[in-house]
């Protein structure tokens, strides 16, 4: 939500610059840098400790840079650490998460775009009620749907499978993606759709040729939002998966819990970073395509 709000504000254009004196600017920058360091500190701790032998961590000095740089904790976390009962590392679960998140994000984004298109440009009797219900779906607490959802997945025969998880996230995601695209398409000039209708384009052609090419910014927002939420989800993952379909978050928890002897903190740190990397990656890659003003010039000057 915060992401969407930020985009619209930024899209509004003309940045207002507040002029301040050199003195107050100095104070502001100092404060900002301090906050920045404060927020980056956990990342620093994680990276540094994931590259040390365990002995260095046990000797104290969590903040120190590694004496003997090693990538062994990363290798272990990836392919050989004990996760639950199996010593497989996080690799199979990482794959599960990918198999879950990619279709869930792709399908919910496309369906959200279609919904938004219909709700704004092909309005029908009762469309506001439909939208209201979808919106309501966004705000139902996760815990409330657990048992009905488990029953549904059972009936559909996809309980405890990755497709089951995809389905769960899809159902939850459509509300949000519809909200994003509906609000975006509401600003989209209806005259363009009418012009295309007169030109002879049908429902899907207009969607594909006219709407989608102008939907870049909102698609990026939607993808970032869905990806982050679905990748980071723990509750659904823990509730609806079996051992062989667990997503990364659940596996990470198992990795940390299941060390029988000494706690291998360096491996845990490496695993935690692995679990966080894809969302970071999406932010960086998608953010680059975060082009504003794609619509500029379609209407008026």
């Amino acid at each position, binding site marked *: 939500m915060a992401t969407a709000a930020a985009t619209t504000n930024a899209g509004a254009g003309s940045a207002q610059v507040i002029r301040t004196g050199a003195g107050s600017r100095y104070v502001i920058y100092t404060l900002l840098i301090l906050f920045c360091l404060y927020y980056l500190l956990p990342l620093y701790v994680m990276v540094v400790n994931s590259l040390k032998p365990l002995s260095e961590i046990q000797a104290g000095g969590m903040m120190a840079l590694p004496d003997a740089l090693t990538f062994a904790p990363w290798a272990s976390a990836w392919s050989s650490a004990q996760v639950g009962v199996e010593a497989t590392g996080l690799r199979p679960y990482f794959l599960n998460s990918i198999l879950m998140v990619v279709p869930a994000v792709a399908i919910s984004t496309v369906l959200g775009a279609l919904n938004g298109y219909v709700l704004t440009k092909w309005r029908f009797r009762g469309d506001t009620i439909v939208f209201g219900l979808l919106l309501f779906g966004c705000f139902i607490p996760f815990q409330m749907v657990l048992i009905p959802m488990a029953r549904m997945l059972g009936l559909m025969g996809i309980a405890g499978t990755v497709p089951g998880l995809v389905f769960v996230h899809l159902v939850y995601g459509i509300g949000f993606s519809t909200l994003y695209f509906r609000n975006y398409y509401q600003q989209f000039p209806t005259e363009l759709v009418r012009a295309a209708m007169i030109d002879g384009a049908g429902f899907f052609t207009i969607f594909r*040729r006219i709407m989608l090419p102008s939907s870049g910014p909102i698609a990026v927002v939607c993808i970032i939002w869905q990806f982050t939420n679905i990748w980071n989800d723990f509750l659904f993952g823990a509730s609806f998966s079996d051992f062989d379909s667990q997503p990364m978050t659940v596996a990470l928890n198992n990795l940390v819990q299941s060390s029988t002897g000494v706690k291998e903190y360096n491996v845990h740190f490496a695993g935690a970073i692995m679990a966080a990397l894809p969302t970071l990656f999406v932010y960086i890659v998608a953010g680059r395509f975060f082009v504003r003003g794609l619509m*500029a*010039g379609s209407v008026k*000057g």
Partner: protein
Amino acid sequence: MGFLDIKNATKSYGPVRVLHETDISVEEGEFLVLVGPSGCGKSTLLNMIAGLEDVTSGEIAIRGRRMNEVRPADRNIAMVFQSYALYPNMNVAQNMAFGLEMHGVPKAERDKAVKDVAELLQITPLLNRKPGQLSGGQRQRVAMGRALVRQPDVFLFDEPLSNLDAKLRVDMRTEIKKLHQKLKTTIVYVTHDQIEALTLSTRIAVMYGGYVQQLGTPKEIYDNPANMFVAGFMGSPSMNLFPAKVELENGQAAARISLVDGKSAILPFAPGNAMASQEGRKIILGIRPEAITDEDGADRNSQAIHKLESVVEVTEPAGSDTFVVTQLGGKEVTARFRADVEVRPGDSFPFAVNMEKAVAFDPETEMRISG
């Protein structure tokens, strides 16, 4: 039966009727302008012709074929929108070719059609640009080009010039007129600008409150407005409307008008005017500014120029003319003087009124009294 027939068409949104029974028959090659103030139902009627809005009752027919249930794409029409509605992700050539592509025209033919129209409109250098890289006037041309390549039966324009600045608007107006004379296409054009309506059209439908108030050639509308709304809306400055009373002077009908100082003046109607039968009736007299002039500026061909002394209240020099405001019948009245007439506010000045151009309305119904 015409080329485009609007037969008894109405439009309602729920219980609200925004367009009342409308009958217009447009001949092939005609330039029909729908003009009226904002909210009068012009765009609604145009969208009904386009098929973008359903017809509540009545019928729309093109070339004798009923269109009510036909999709916009299959009506063989093209439309130019107020916002131009150019597809932002396609360049100019793609924008123009899109309709042809959707109608299954082969690539080579499309390219040829786009090339020809681009030359006609002098937009060939723009073909590879995106709409975002064009000025307002260029976008306007491209929007017209997109309509032209389709070679439709009917062109629909919805306020195509209202987003342009004043100078460009006048240029484009001329250009549209030239284009129509050259291509002899059938056009229905919506505007709220009465000058655009008068200059472009072969016929005008003046609309107000969901009704067509009058349908006629620009000259008919201008000289013989059907009611006080049309009289006041068409023409700039608008027609002077002020109360008068019909009297008989030497057996001839005349209008008695009160002046500022309690005096009154008498203006005989033109010979042959049927107002004689209306003796004693209170009327609203309608006289256009150019029919109230200084004495030397009066129309020499008129048989019914009458003089009248009145006090000048304001003068507004407008370059080619000077508009002079005085009071007649208790209303402000604008007269059109030649620019070099010496006239000052406060002067009592002789005005020449061309009663051949005077029209009379009923004060209650606001309809034209035809005598």
